[in-house]
């Protein structure tokens, strides 16, 4: 260990002003700066999504099932970053990870991952994050998912199977129809082999939606279960409301969609004081995107207001926080630029 440290220190002195990895990258792109991963497989996941298998480099710290990573890909020469839940079970340093990306008609990144990315490409990965993880002890679990909200729970299911979970589980999944229900075959096989309850509902095909009565019928012990929910706002809100009234176990929610930015605000002129740049930011463009469009690379994480990885000092002016639905005009306030838009002029310490 001590010799490793010494080697690193001498290496840095020799490579200054760069680091030795800048030269190692000449041999293998995976040895460059930061956490990177090689795409080792791309497989279709139903008609509207693909699953990626990634082999991370030596800087990867591992992840727990249910956590998410920020993936960075270069599209037309520009780095774009998005968060995706891992669909793999707990993984350690050298293990491969998987994630699934559903195509959105106007989603630049999701379209690229579905159509442009190739096996062998190297992508950028930020360390795994998130509190949406399984409890330490085997307790009854109620898992409620909708649409692509299945992805973190898919990681759970694989982990639970690996571990041989010793408590009852109900997984209630909503999808528009059977055809687009992600991982259906694998989930059915797992449930059968492990003796879990799996209930699939396809509202488009006339299946009944979420209700307290139906839940009682499917899983009477749910009140004492650990509840996990990940899905569209309507579904998630209904589960949270019912749990608040009757649930006794903990509830964990994973958000997978940024708050919709309604064009209610004003937009305005935003100044990034450190970069000394001023841009016009419309009411529908969040400040993180506005900064990126100006060529800045602000620190960030989830891009949906939940990780606080993008907190930036508001130096003057005012912004509209769409997650909290409020206007912030306190000088020196720390704002989540990924969910804020300009409300008149504003200056940010970026």
């Amino acid at each position, binding site marked *: 260990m001590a010799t490793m440290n010494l080697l690193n220190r001498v290496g840095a002195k020799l490579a200054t002003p760069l680091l030795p990895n*800048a*030269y190692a990258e*000449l041999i293998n792109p995976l040895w460059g700066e*930061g956490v990177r991963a090689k795409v080792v497989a791309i497989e279709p996941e139903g008609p509207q999504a693909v699953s990626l298998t990634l082999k991370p480099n030596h800087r990867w710290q591992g992840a727990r099932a249910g956590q998410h990573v920020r993936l960075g890909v270069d599209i037309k020469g*520009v780095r774009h970053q998005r968060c995706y839940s891992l669909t793999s079970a707990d993984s350690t340093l050298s293990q491969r990870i998987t994630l699934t990306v559903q195509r959105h008609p106007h989603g630049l990144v999701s379209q690229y991952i579905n159509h442009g990315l190739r096996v062998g490409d190297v992508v950028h990965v930020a360390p795994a994050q998130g509190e949406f993880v399984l409890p330490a002890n085997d307790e009854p679990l109620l898992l409620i998912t909708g649409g692509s909200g299945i992805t973190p729970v898919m990681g759970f299911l694989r982990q639970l199977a690996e571990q041989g979970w010793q408590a009852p589980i109900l997984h209630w999944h909503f999808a528009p129809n059977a055809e687009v229900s992600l991982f259906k075959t694998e989930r059915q096989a797992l449930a059968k082999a492990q003796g879990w309850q799996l209930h699939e509902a396809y509202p488009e095909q006339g299946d009944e939606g979420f209700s307290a009565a139906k839940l009682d019928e499917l899983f009477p012990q749910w009140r004492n279960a650990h509840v996990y929910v990940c899905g569209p706002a309507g579904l998630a809100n209904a589960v949270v409301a019912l749990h608040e009234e009757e649930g006794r176990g903990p509830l964990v929610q994973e958000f997978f969609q940024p708050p919709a930015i309604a064009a209610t605000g004003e937009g305005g002129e935003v100044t990034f004081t450190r970069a000394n740049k001023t841009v016009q930011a419309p009411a529908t463009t969040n400040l993180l995107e506005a900064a990126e469009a100006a*060529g800045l690379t602000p620190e960030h994480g989830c891009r949906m207001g939940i990780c606080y990885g993008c907190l930036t000092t508001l130096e003057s002016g005012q912004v509209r926080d769409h997650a909290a639905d409020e206007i912030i005009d306190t000088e020196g306030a720390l704002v989540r630029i990924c969910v804020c838009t300009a409300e008149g002029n504003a200056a940010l310490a970026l």
Partner: protein
Amino acid sequence: MNTALKLAEPEITPQSPVFGYLNAEELEQFGAEIDAVRQRILSSLDEGDAAYIRRIIRWQRGLEVLGRGALFLGILPPFWLLGTASLSVAKILENMEIGHNVMHGQWDWMRDPSIHSSTWEWDNVCPKEEWKHSHNFMHHKWTNVVGMDRDVGYGILRMSEEQPWHPAYLFQPITNALLASFFQWGVALHDLETDRLRRGERKWSEVKDKWRRIRKKMGKQVLKDYVLFPLLAGPFFLPVLLGNATANLVRNLWSYAIIFCGHFPEGTHEFLPEDVENETQAHWYLRQMLGSANITGGPLFHIMSGNLSHQIEHHLFPDMPSNRYAEAAKEVQAICEKYGLPYNAKPFWAQFGSVMKKVLRLSLPNFSSRSKGPTPQQA
């Protein structure tokens, strides 16, 4: 040298040729056309450009590894030559086509944090912060404004008739040769504005932090090139040391030559502080153009000069990726023709010779009341 540059001295005649070329309406049209070139090129950037800079970076690092590797066998003359040449080219590429341009933010649009103006540190004793201040701000904003752009003579040379003469300038040919040989050190100390410190116009306490940063960077660079790599070569300490020193010298001379060709050949304009009061964007464009000179040459020459051979385009569009300057140059030249503006582009030896003549001529006092450059009447 304590030759103060007093700008308000009465013998300076504020004769600005800038507007001699264009009336107000033409100036605005000219500005809009230059703007359109910028917009068109910047909006067409794509993966091809990203691949270009990454390819240059790979070449630069590969050449550096090759150079340093070959120098370990530098006791054999062919290896010493190969090693020194590769390392020289690597250092030139790193400072000019990569470092200088990345620090201008030319590649920020890629949003790759490892090729970004906010993080890039270059292989040069001048720290990035000092460089960005003295170069990106002072020089690019106030290009060739005597007394404001400190690159006019770097505080030690007399490069403009507007700078008052002093007997110390008689030694200018020697000072100039020293500046060229130790260019990176000159550039590093540049932002301290030592001439102003000596004259008491700037307090030592104001620059203490800068000096600390510069010293630290100098220490790291010296340790690498003159201690660690030579030591690593064991018995071949000396050839490695000499190779590294030569590579640094070659880089110094080359970057000095290219940079001096950019603004000081005959025909480039100088300006006075009153020329830039309340300056509009179009006026700034015109001034950048008139104050810069291009060097003609082949594609490899352009890359080796960090595309500063397209100094005019670089000054019009400092944040445009350098690989696009050649393309911009065609359009800018056409616009200049249309408006009857001079476009100073000549081969290297013509521009460099003209700069050296100026260095010699200005070491002596002004004999005639020469003008600062060709006025439109003369041109």
